[in-house]
């Protein structure tokens, strides 16, 4: 098996990924204990309960949007201790501390609303982003054309939204930083896990009715440069409304 030629004592390979953020989001949501390992440019991120605790190597893997050879490796406690004794590891204490080291991230999906492309990258759970609770608001909207309403909302440069459909009982949480959606999460009553990323918009764009929209500005945005993958820009040219992926 693959594990054997990486390191015999380093745990169990469970998944392969091609995109760093997808791998990271998987590891976070599953509460991974082990490491995310990138073949080239070499990078290892140690995780405990889905939280990155250390990394070694080159973070440029995050700037490559595709075709990166990424392994998710689960480890036992003793294996993790042995691995973390490696002095090349640099300590991290949160997902934010890891992301703040990443200078550039490629955005590989988006949602097109009436011809306008809004780039989407699920870096954060929207609920985990602190907002300005001194200045905020909430409105009950009667929505006839959800595409246009969402388009209006997403036009904001920097804003967090909690949108609750009273009619269809879904909840869409969004955080926008510098014109990029950095977190989008849709919960529906019949779904166990929320739908994240650009796919979170699929259902709401076809769901008119009464919406309660609560809005506030995020207190801070990650200092990351977002590079929009050209392929989604190209694909968006042929789409009026819908989700596009590279």
């Amino acid at each position, binding site marked *: 098996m693959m594990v054997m030629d990486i390191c015999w004592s380093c745990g169990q390979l469970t998944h392969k990924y091609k995109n760093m953020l997808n791998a990271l989001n998987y590891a976070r949501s599953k509460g991974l204990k082990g490491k995310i390992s990138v073949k080239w440019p070499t990078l290892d991120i140690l995780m405990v309960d889905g939280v990155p605790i250390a990394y070694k190597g080159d973070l440029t893997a995050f700037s490559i949007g595709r075709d990166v050879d990424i392994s998710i490796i689960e480890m036992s406690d003793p294996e993790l201790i042995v691995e973390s004794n490696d002095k090349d590891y640099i300590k991290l204490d949160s997902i934010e501390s890891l992301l703040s080291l990443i200078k550039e991230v490629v955005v590989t999906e988006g949602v097109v609303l009436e011809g306008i492309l809004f780039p989407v990258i699920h870096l954060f759970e*929207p*609920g985990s982003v602190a907002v300005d*609770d*001194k200045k905020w*608001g*909430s409105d009950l909207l009667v929505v006839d054309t959800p595409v246009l309403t969402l388009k209006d909302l997403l036009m904001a440069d920097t804003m967090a939204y909690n949108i609750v459909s009273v009619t269809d009982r879904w909840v869409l949480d969004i955080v926008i930083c510098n014109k990029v959606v950095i977190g989008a999460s849709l919960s529906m009553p019949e779904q166990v896990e929320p739908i994240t990323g650009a796919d979170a918009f699929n259902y709401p764009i076809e769901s008119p009715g009464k919406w*309660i929209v609560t809005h*506030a500005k995020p207190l801070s945005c990650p200092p990351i440069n977002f590079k929009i993958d050209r392929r989604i820009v190209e694909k968006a040219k042929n789409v009026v409304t819908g989700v596009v992926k590279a």
Partner: protein
Amino acid sequence: MVSSMQKIKDSSCVKIEVEIPKGKRGSFVVCNGTIHDAKWGELKGEEAWRKMLDDLKSSPKLVNILFYPPPEEISLLEEMSADALVSSDVASGYVASYGIVSLGKAVLGFLHQLEALGADVREFRLKVDNGTARLHVEILGDIPWDRIVEIALRYLSDFGIERILPG
């Protein structure tokens, strides 16, 4: 933290699991001031609840709190579950800072409560600025403005809102 736990006990109907990392853990079922079930380390009942508050007082570190719906037999009233929904998230707000989801849940709790009292909410607009909220609400139903303000404050005061004005 301790006052927030006390508040959860007094005003909501919820099952919580409390864990001090590398320390004690336990679970509690509380409903509107009554402790229905409490385990903290080896302790049970009132004693477990008191000891847990003591331990939280002396624990400087982050505390993990998970919220669950209470067992069915003690959550019959709609009004209670709306409260539980909000208080639980407000409490986790003491652990981290407020996110958009907490604000949204507070608003939803307030609107649910109006509907539980028989109001059909036709228009709603809330604008918060430094402790003052301007509220516009148009309802079909018979709830006096003072009562609406009282309910709104119950849901919004945790976010530092002290005054509610029509607007």
